[in-house]
């Protein structure tokens, strides 16, 4: 059975959106959404994540008139001030034009999606919903051979109070040949009413481009998010990616990387720290379409209380992609009997000359190490905290953008401490 999103209500909401260059794309996406519906547990990629809650929040939002609330400037500054980056801000799905203006003198070219000629694909289950209800989005371009485009921050911030909220955001990023740029993708929210945010980002690296990319999700406890990043890597290009899921309620991330050019390489990693009744699902997929190409991923997670975490890592080495190297690892700590971890590595290999490996572990905190620390005078909570931080820090230290590691590390420490408190309840 399809979760029953009210298509008529979506259609009404689409008609109310500003009539900009996206109007035709929205209608096409609506038709697609109507035909496909939203994925259910019978869909292999969605068997761990039930979207009923998201459909419910969306229907309530549509019934209430599909309005958005303003996001306070202070809430924006509270995030942007923490990182040395030039920030593009999307508030409740609306592009903040002032944030674009700041890039006028920089090497980073920015257009509204409605004013660009970008085709907006909706081939993934939630991408149709994303385009249908999209107010506007951003097209970011780093011109060829710009070696130091700097660090671009992408802040997705939402506010929902009194009434539920829903937001759609979309960004297309192109790094032209030989260019280099760094990105921080940050998801935040405020307010106590339910909220659902749906983000789709397309990243295209032309030949020889280099990109460091860090995603942080630190939404309110009651807020849901689905996010999708697709990356296409040209010859000899490099993508280093790290993702940190610290907050939110129901969270689903899809990272989909296609290595299409010879010599392209990607290293990506993720950390998810979940307590309460959080549901955090990370699906990664890397396609080695040619060889030699290289991919390496490591995800780590901690599930406390009644949290459920999912890691599904798929690597596909296509026919002829010889000389490919694909490695994946996933390590988990399960801290309570009510918590759940689903870890699923998938390797599909259709080429001959391939080095591929995967390793997955799910365990508890090492009792021997806990006792050892306690004999040195650390109380049990401090010892547990130290071991959890050490476990999580392995992802912090391997993430790109060394300049922001300290800030990330502090956020991780804060979240670990909160898990300990929740755990003791």
């Amino acid at each position: 059975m399809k979760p029953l999103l009210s298509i008529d209500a979506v259609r009404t909401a689409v008609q109310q959106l500003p009539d900009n260059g996206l109007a035709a794309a929205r209608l096409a996406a609506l038709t697609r959404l109507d035909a496909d519906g939203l994925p259910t547990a019978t869909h292999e990629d969605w068997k761990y994540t039930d979207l009923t809650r998201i459909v419910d929040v969306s229907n309530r939002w549509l019934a209430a008139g599909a309005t958005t609330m303003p996001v306070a400037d202070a809430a924006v500054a509270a995030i942007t001030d923490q990182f040395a980056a030039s920030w593009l801000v999307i508030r409740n799905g609306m592009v903040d034009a002032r944030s674009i203006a700041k890039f006028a003198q920089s090497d980073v070219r920015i257009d509204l999606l409605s004013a660009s000629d970008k085709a907006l694909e909706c081939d993934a289950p939630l991408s149709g919903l994303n385009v249908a209800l999209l107010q506007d989005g951003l097209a970011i371009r780093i011109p060829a051979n710009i070696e130091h485009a700097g660090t671009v921050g992408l802040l997705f911030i939402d506010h929902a109070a009194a009434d539920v909220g829903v937001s759609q955001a979309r960004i297309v990023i192109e790094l032209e040949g030989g260019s280099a740029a760094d990105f921080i993708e940050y998801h935040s929210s405020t307010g106590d009413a339910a909220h659902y945010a749906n983000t789709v980002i397309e990243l295209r690296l032309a030949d020889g481009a280099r990109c460091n990319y860090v995603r942080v999700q630190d939404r309110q406890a009651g807020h849901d998010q689905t996010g999708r990043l697709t990356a296409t890597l040209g010859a000899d290009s490099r993508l280093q990616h790290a993702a940190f899921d610290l907050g939110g309620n129901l969270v689903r991330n899809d990272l989909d990387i296609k290595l299409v050019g010879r010599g392209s390489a990607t290293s990506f990693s993720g950390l998810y720290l979940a307590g309460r009744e959080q549901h955090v699902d990370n699906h990664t997929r890397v396609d080695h379409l040619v060889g030699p190409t290289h991919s390496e991923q490591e995800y780590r997670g901690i599930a406390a209380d009644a949290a459920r975490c999912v890691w599904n890592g798929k690597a596909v080495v296509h026919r002829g992609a010889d000389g490919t190297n694909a490695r994946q690892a996933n390590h988990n700590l399960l801290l309570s009997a009510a918590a759940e971890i689903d870890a699923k590595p998938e390797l599909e290999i259709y080429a001959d000359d391939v080095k591929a490996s995967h390793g997955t572990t799910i365990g508890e905190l090492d009792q021997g190490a806990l006792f050892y620390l306690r004999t040195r005078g650390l109380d049990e909570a401090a010892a547990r905290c130290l071991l959890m931080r050490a476990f999580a820090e392995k992802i912090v230290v391997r993430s790109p953008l060394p300049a922001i590691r300290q800030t990330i590390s502090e956020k991780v420490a804060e979240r670990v401490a909160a898990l300990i408190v929740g755990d003791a309840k």
Partner: protein
Amino acid sequence: MLEIKNLNASIGGSEILRGLSLCVRAGEVHAIMGPNGSGKSTLAQVVAGNDAYVVNSGSLLFDGQDLLALEPEERARRGIFLGFQYPVEIPGVNNAYLLKAAFNARRKHAGLSEIDAFEFLKLAKEKMAMLDMDPKFLNRGVNEGFSGGEKKRNEILQMAILEPRLAVLDETDSGLDIDALRAVANGVNALRGPDRAIILVTHYQRLLDYIEPDFVHVLSDGRIVRSGDKSLAPELEEKGYDWLREAANA
């Protein structure tokens, strides 16, 4: 200082200590010897408070206070230190961080102010020089990738910094080459003093050539079957443990 009476302890349902009694006064160094499986390590773990071991009966007093009522960290803060036979590797936990946290936990308990990073580093480097340890060990993960000898030196470093009132060293000598053994002995001898006591758990007499004990006890089947002065150790080395076991069973 430490008074153990009729201690019975088991792990996983099997009884290891069967009526062990031992009295250690301030200023003394005691060596506990005995064959494998006699309960030496169990004694060390029970004194430190490992809850994998169940104390069935008997008492364990430290300065007149019931140790069995205290968590491992409370025992540590009162000045009990266990040097592990197999020090645990804790990847990602910085050695200096742990040393400083342990040191400050002890100071805080004693009502003293916490020491700052600069002062601590000075203290740590001083102790490392005494143990002939490379300062680079401070910035590595706790015992992460350390050789057997490095791990044991690291235990002694922790002890030297914490200056415990009672140190229980569980087979600290096993697997050490002669240089490491000397370094470890230097650390232990430097700690000796009228206010402190040391229990050396060892299988061999070798360590006692470098650290002269006041008393030697032989543990067999979970209790002390013979006690004597330092001359008991070479006698054991010569005759083995079997004669004592036979004597005890007779």
